[in-house]
């Protein structure tokens, strides 16, 4: 974002191209000219953005005023802010969603750092819709948790430029993209044995999960967990299989213990 100075000379042409191809702006998609020029879509932003008209002119490549460097820097900053705020609105439109969906599929937003999620692709999101409150985070649809971007150049982007709704709307619209959830998890162990404090917590969590599954089944809704929704009759035996595996590990150690 800060290296705009290097392309000062061409600031009147294709500002949006420059913006989305700048290092650090990989999360943004290009907003259509049509969308930007429809005043309805910008409702309320004039009070939010300084030098609103200049900023809008710059973003739409019609800014042609001679201003000093200081002023241009201010307008430039306002233009980036304006673009971000419009972006948050644009990406929940049909076209915006489609563009972001493509980027998601390509893994542009990175992969979930959680080992069990097996490099699930992420989506950018904000914890607030109001600017200047929090930075952009990454949402993993597999573990449904949010993570800090790895790179500091992404960590400084305002979360409001993506907003709190976009990633949830994307999966409502493209339901088939929602990955299956997994019940597998990391189990802290010492010499092969579970540790009581964390094991007790995990049992508690798994009870909550079973309660959720019961609620869903009562309403005839798929649970969304892998190896779970194939058929109701298999459910119990599948549960048993999972447990058998876990017991297998423990039984092994149990045997060793008794030998000692």
């Amino acid at each position, binding site marked *: 974002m800060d290296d705009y100075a290097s392309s000062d000379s061409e600031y009147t042409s294709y500002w949006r191209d420059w913006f989305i191809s700048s290092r650090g702006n990989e999360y943004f998609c290009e907003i259509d000219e049509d969308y930007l020029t429809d005043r309805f879509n910008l409702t309320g932003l004039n009070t939010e953005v300084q030098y609103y008209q200049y900023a809008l002119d710059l973003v739409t490549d019609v800014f042609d005023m001679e201003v000093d460097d200081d002023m241009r820097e201010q307008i430039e900053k306002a233009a980036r802010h304006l673009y971000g705020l419009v972006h948050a609105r644009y990406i929940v439109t049909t076209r915006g969603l489609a563009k972001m969906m493509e980027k998601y599929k390509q893994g542009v937003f990175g992969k979930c750092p959680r080992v069990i999620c097996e490099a699930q692709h992420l989506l950018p999101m904000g914890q607030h819709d109001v600017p200047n409150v929090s930075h952009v985070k990454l949402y993993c649809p597999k573990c449904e948790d949010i993570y800090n971007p790895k790179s500091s150049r992404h960590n400084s982007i305002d979360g409001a430029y993506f907003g709190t709704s976009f990633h949830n709307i994307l999966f409502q619209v493209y339901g088939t993209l929602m990955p299956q959830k997994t019940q597998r998890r990391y189990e802290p162990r010492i010499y092969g044995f579970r540790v009581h404090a964390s094991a007790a917590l995990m049992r508690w969590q798994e009870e909550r999960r079973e309660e959720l599954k019961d609620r869903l089944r009562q309403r005839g809704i798929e649970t969304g967990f892998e190896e779970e929704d194939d058929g109701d009759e298999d459910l119990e035996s599948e549960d*048993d299989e999972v447990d058998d595996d876990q017991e297998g590990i423990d039984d092994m150690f149990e045997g060793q213990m008794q030998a000692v």
Partner: protein
Amino acid sequence: MSSSSQTPESWISAFCSLVGHEYFAEVSEDFVEDDFNLTGLQSQVPMYKEALEMILDVEPEDGTEDEEEEEEEEEEDDDDMQQDGDRSYRRADAAERRHLRMASDLSVIESSAEMLYGLIHQRFITSRQGIQQMAEKYELGHFGHCPRVYCHGAKVLPVGCSDIPGQETVKLFCPSCLDVYTPPNSRFQTVDGAFFGTTFGCLFFMTFPELEVGGQKPSSSAQTTDPLVSGQSPQPESINGIAPKNLAPGLGQGNIYEPRIYGFRVSEFAKTGPRMKWLRGRPTDVTELDECKVWTQSQALHAAAEGLAPPDAADLADSEMADDNVEADEGEEEEEDMDVNDGEGAPSGTAQNAMFASLPQQDVTARRKPSRRRGHDVALTNGEGGGTALSVGGAG
């Protein structure tokens, strides 16, 4: 192995200062020289002897050292007359050996040495001395921070998901959410997870129970949890052997992502609604995790509700599970506390293993699905679980 250079740096510290090796502790030479710590490694590492020499910076081709060693050998031969001739012969032999080594074996030995160091390292960091060194690195933030937003930058620890080399690369364990993450930098994706092992992560936090494992919570999020805390029943000093504030502080209410669309929560009954909140859940009142107490209460309720009438199948299954937990818990509570205070060195392990002996018992029985035993006698299950746990503990 630049034998001619005068660098005081040992192989071990050179290895640990390589890019990508930032997570490693420097295993002390004492530890490597103690044969007990190397038990069983000889068969796992090719060119074991040479690899070990490399790690310890023992250079058999170095003239003076070699002669000393050979003199000892010669005493066994005890043929003083031929000593001079012998020595020159051996010296030539040593030169030849060195030549061979330099030419072809060096890279094999080098990689064997790395493997051997890694396997020793796995044991070292669960010893008193090694875990202390890792604690210093942890405190300095050498291992980084949890990427999860709600962990607020909690410090993480390198762990393996397997103890067998060649299976998985090193991962990072977060004590605040009890989950494991891939290191952010790709340079760690060549580091074998077995060099840290599966035990170290947990053992570390049991050894240093006083470490604050939560990250830096911003004041705004503290406010949101305040009302909950105020209306909450008093929390115990310790739950299942650890202080509540160190039991997954990054989980629970206020630390679970709540999906919203235009400010409205997405219902769990929506097709793409939330399904994973359990994974980040934690009871606001940690006494819910005191399975012993919970069971006692549920038994009391049960007795009040049912009188002396026999419970039906479903109820039986429930109480059966709870029963098992309780039996194991009682034996375990003291043992776990013992361990926390002890923080004993690891690989020698028999005593320590005995301390955990009751743990798997508990988990096995607790996890046995009620469906398979539905209708069995509660008392019998109890007797089984409790009895075995006790006898195993007693044996150690």
